[in-house]
């Protein structure tokens, strides 16, 4: 699944570590999600959406 996480993070000038701390996950998790290596669970997807104040489908896109 594609996502806009890297762009959204860059718009806020956050590093992967910054985003990881805000989501309370490891930096490796953020990297894996950003690169499309791992699709987050629904609860984590909601946390990401809440953090960016967006809907899930605005961040995660169908292939």
């Amino acid at each position, binding site marked *: 699944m594609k996502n806009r996480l890297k762009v959204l993070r860059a718009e806020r000038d956050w590093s992967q570590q910054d985003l990881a701390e805000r989501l309370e*996950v490891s930096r490796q998790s953020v990297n*894996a999600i950003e690169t499309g290596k791992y699709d987050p669970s629904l609860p984590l997807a909601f946390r990401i959406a809440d953090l960016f104040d967006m809907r899930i489908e605005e961040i995660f896109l169908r292939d």
Partner: protein
Amino acid sequence: MPQTAAKIETDFAGRQPAVWAIAFAAAMAAIAYCEHRGLLGGWRSLPFVAAATLLLVPLTKAANNRQAAAGALSSATRRYNRRMLIWSLGYVLCLGIAMTVRNYLHPQGALLWGIAFLPSAPMIFFVWTLARYVVEEEDEYLRYRQTSAALIGLALVLLAGTLWGFLETFGVVPHVPAWWVVPVWAIGLGLGQMIMASAERRAGRT
């Protein structure tokens, strides 16, 4: 952290965990070779095995630092690494006690059963450690990563065990004790982690 302290930390555990793992494997292989040649054997091997096992301490430290540098060291991972180290040391201790009792007391009956069971007892802690990690790990990606690597280890055990079992049944290879399942699983776990790390690096480049 002061620069000097940081440098010391890096110097000590900045070495790749693989370096310590290779040193440990080489030491164990050397001991096995000496036993094969009759230079060591039984309880005489124990001090060497114990010394080789101590290499797991810097290996664990290096693994912790490597995971921290990769942004993958959760508190659950740290506890898992510490418990695995305790298990390894406990295993060698129990094995040493069992072999010493067998060689000096030549027990029979219940005591023989007891010392034969003793080296397997730490496996209860080992299995508990695996289960606790899955329960305690709050980072879903790290949990996915570790369970995937463990499944690769399991796959290797099943494949190697079945293959060797049939080769043994048909008399083309020698007998191998069943306790080899854990070392084979650990090799598979390590391979699984390497495969996943490689996939992450590839994904990071795209």
